[in-house]
Structures are given as structure tokens and as C-alpha cells.
């Protein structure tokens, strides 16, 4: 066996990038993570800053969640040249690779909805950064009456349940403060039903009704007027609000690719849904939110894809199942999970306290799980096996 280690460059030190780096054996691979900033974020916690005012830290240094033998370079990336197999850094230095893994995540693009930048400045959001999440918390605390609109803008977004999680938590916030009869809550989505997947919607829609939350479906947000406080759909339907929290359209990050057509129109990288290989390349992969795959943009996707790519790089014939396991907080200490895979549509998984507590427990293990896959992988494997959608579908109908 050759003693020359294979060079792996991973662009992005988020969930997927860090989990993959820590899984590659040091004897076989020389792994380098590149990230333009020094932190690994636990993005799901923006929800609890925004709607609970949580002060729990949501970031740690990337370096601290990597095995000591993984290299870390803090730098932006200008070019990923898949044809000539190099990554060009901000300082124009070129790094060659045997394998490149794109784990750059997603970013938000306010320019796609006129008025959205101003509305975000006024009321905040919980899909971008801590500052905007704190602004949501201020918005809730400053509201004594009127209409709170939570609007899902058309486009890709992180965490499928998150628009409704925020809606449910806002309802709980106002009810606990005795303001529920004064604050009207409206959820607007471009999907045909409040939760896009039908079986889960059968649990969610009745719950919205029970809690007196109004909802508008097929509402394709076109623009927002921050002064008059009106949102307009593409068909001109007006939604008046006193405060609006909009889930902004997400896009891929601004890196130049060669060839350019590996990107879709939203700058996400096109890939094979089973192997995560970038379209047309054997030695390039894309994992997590950065991919154009029609799968949920969520940590569990990045987590499982990182495991598959780690096995492929070690010569195994591994394939993604498309498994999702998105925690869904519906307020009042209750939750469920959105569980599905490529072969099984979403399960009508029950709402209860233990499912919510699993979400809380996961948050507590997040960075430890990234750093010690050798300890946590067997636990997650057992969990995923016990909750395979092909089994669950016979239990929950």
C-alpha cells in the first residue's frame, strides 16, 4: 500500500465539514478544512434566541471541534476549479487536492424580495445570524397588540419545520404573557398546506386551529412595504401586519466554480443524490445545505451525507438513503420529528414530550458528537435503525 496520503480539502467548517474531517483516518488522508471565519455554529438555536431569549452560546471555534491532526485554514475561497483540481484562496494561493468536498452551507439573499432588507432591520429573523434573532426577541417583547405575520418567502430555506416552529413558539410567548387575545398571529406559506408534507400536516393543521393561529397557503411573497406594513403576494394579495418575521430565500455562497454549470440558478452545487458526487466529477463532493439536491437543508442531512462520503473516500460502496430526522418544536414542551427517506414519505410521527426532549438532548451533545464520532456514531446508528421510516410507517398511520 502506498504511504502517500490522499489530500482532502473540505470547504466549510460547519456540521457536515467538521463531521467528515473527523471521520477520515489520519493514516490514509491529509485533511484540510477551509472556512472564511473561525466558528462552528449550532444554527438551530437561533430559534430559541428569537422566541425564548436564550443566552446559551451557539458557536465554538472550529479548531476546538476538530481532531488535532486535521488542518484548519481560516480564509475565504475565491475559486473552486473542478477541472484543474485546485481551490484558490483569498490571497490567490492555490491548493491542489485528490478530493474536494464542498460544505459551504447556505446564505440568505434579501434582494430577491424587495423591501425585505428593511423589514428584517425592523423586526429581525431567525435564519441568518444572532443579531437578527435577538431583534425578533425584541419585536415580541415590544408587541402588546396587533398582527404578527410569519411569512415563508418562496425559495430554499434551512430546516423545513422552522417557519412553523417560530409560529408555535410565538403563540406560546403571547399566551403565557396574557396577550394572546390582543395579538393575532398569521402564518403565510407558498406551499399548498401549512406543513408541506401531507402526513405531518395532518398533525400540524389541527394544532394551528386549536391554538387560534391563522394561516394562508399558496401565498407566494413578492414584495413587502415596510412603511405601510403590508406584504404583497405575486398575485397582489395584501397581508397587513404590525410586525413581520420573514423566512428569507436562501442561496449558495458566493464562490466561483469551474465549470460554472455545476451550480443551479440559486448557486447551489448540483450533485448525485446517492453519492453526493458533484455533477460530472468523481473526485468532488457536496454535502449539507450547499447542495442543489431536493432534500431538506438540515443538520441531519449534512451529518448522514458526511458519513457516506467518508465511507466512499475509504473505498466503500456507500449510498445515501435520504433519511431526514428534523426535530419539530410545537411549543409548550411538545415536539415531533419529520422522518422520511427517498423511499418513504414523511411519517405521521406523534407529538409528545419525549420527542421534544430528544431535541433538547441533541442540542446538548452537538459539539461533542462532532468531535467524537467514534463514541456517538453507534448511538445515532441505533437510533436511526430503530426509527427507520420503512418500519415506522406501519406503526403510525
Amino acid at each position: 500500500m502506498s504511504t502517500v496520503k490522499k489530500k482532502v480539502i473540505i470547504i466549510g467548517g460547519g456540521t457536515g465539514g467538521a463531521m467528515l474531517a473527523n471521520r477520515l483516518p489520519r493514516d490514509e488522508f491529509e485533511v484540510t478544512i477551509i472556512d472564511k471565519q473561525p466558528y462552528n455554529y449550532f444554527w438551530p438555536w437561533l430559534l430559541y434566541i428569537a422566541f425564548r431569549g436564550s443566552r446559551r452560546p451557539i458557536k465554538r471555534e472550529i479548531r476546538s471541534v476538530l481532531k488535532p491532526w486535521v488542518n484548519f485554514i481560516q480564509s475565504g475561497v475565491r475559486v473552486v476549479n473542478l477541472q484543474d483540481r485546485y481551490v484558490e484562496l483569498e490571497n490567490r494561493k492555490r491548493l491542489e487536492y485528490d478530493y474536494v468536498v464542498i460544505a459551504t452551507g447556505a446564505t440568505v439573499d434579501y434582494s430577491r424580495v424587495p423591501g425585505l432588507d428593511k423589514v428584517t432591520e425592523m423586526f429581525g429573523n431567525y435564519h441568518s445570524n444572532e443579531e437578527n434573532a435577538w431583534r425578533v426577541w425584541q419585536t415580541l417583547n415590544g408587541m402588546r397588540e396587533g398582527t404578527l405575520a410569519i411569512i415563508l418567502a418562496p425559495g430554499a430555506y434551512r430546516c423545513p419545520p422552522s417557519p412553523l416552529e417560530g409560529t408555535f413558539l410565538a403563540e406560546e410567548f403571547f399566551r403565557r404573557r396574557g396577550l394572546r387575545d390582543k395579538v393575532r398571529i398569521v402564518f403565510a406559506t407558498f406551499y399548498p398546506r401549512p406543513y408541506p408534507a401531507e402526513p405531518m400536516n395532518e398533525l400540524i393543521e389541527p394544532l394551528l386551529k386549536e391554538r387560534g393561529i391563522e394561516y394562508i397557503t399558496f401565498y407566494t411573497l413578492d414584495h413587502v412595504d415596510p412603511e405601510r406594513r403590508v406584504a404583497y403576494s405575486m398575485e397582489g394579495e395584501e397581508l397587513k401586519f404590525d410586525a413581520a418575521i420573514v423566512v428569507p430565500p436562501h442561496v449558495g455562497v458566493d464562490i466561483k466554480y469551474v465549470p460554472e454549470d455545476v451550480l443551479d440558478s440559486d448557486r447551489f452545487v448540483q450533485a448525485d443524490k446517492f453519492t453526493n458526487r458533484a455533477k460530472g466529477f468523481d473526485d468532488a463532493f457536496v454535502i449539507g445545505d450547499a447542495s442543489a439536491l431536493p432534500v431538506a437543508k438540515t443538520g441531519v442531512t449534512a451529518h448522514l451525507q458526511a458519513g457516506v462520503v467518508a465511507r466512499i473516500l475509504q473505498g466503500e460502496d456507500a449510498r445515501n438513503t435520504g433519511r431526514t430526522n428534523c426535530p419539530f418544536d410545537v411549543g409548550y414542551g411538545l415536539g415531533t420529528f419529520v422522518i422520511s427517506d427517498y423511499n418513504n414519505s414523511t411519517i405521521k410521527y406523534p407529538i409528545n414530550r419525549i420527542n421534544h426532549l430528544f431535541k433538547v438532548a441533541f442540542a446538548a451533545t452537538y459539539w461533542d458528537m462532532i468531535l467524537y464520532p467514534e463514541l456517538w456514531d453507534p448511538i445515532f446508528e441505533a437510533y436511526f435503525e430503530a426509527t427507520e421510516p420503512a418500519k415506522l410507517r406501519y406503526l403510525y398511520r
Partner: protein
Amino acid sequence: MDMSQGNRILVDARGIACPGPITEVVKAYRNARNGDLIEVWATDPGFEPDIRAWIQRTGNQLLELRKESDKIVAVIKVTAKK
């Protein structure tokens, strides 16, 4: 603008599970203008009721909805954008 001069946009949502096809339609719709045609290919059976409901709700026109052996084809004329 002459309404008959619209572009024809193809959306291939085959192999994407419900409600993915609607997400793809909305992506194309966002960039379309009145007069454009959007032709959608989908394989998920949930697409048919969803696209009918979408048409009814948004007021755009459904020119064709047919089942072929390997896919469902919908042709939409964008007419309702303000």
C-alpha cells in the same frame, strides 16, 4: 407586452417527492412573466391535486394536465402576476 410572445420554461421535477414539485413550480413562477408558459414534469402522484389547487388559488391558467406512462405533465400559462 404581447401575451402570445411569452417564453416556455421547462421544470423537470421527476423523482422529487411531494411537495418538491410545487417548490420547483414556484421557483420558475417567481422568475416568469405574464404570458410565459411553464411546463412541469413530475412523477409524484400528489402533484396532480396540488397543482390543481395552486391554479385555483393563484388564478393562473392550466392549459394541460395529462398522465403519460412515465410522468405527469402540466402546462401552465402565467396570467395572474401583478
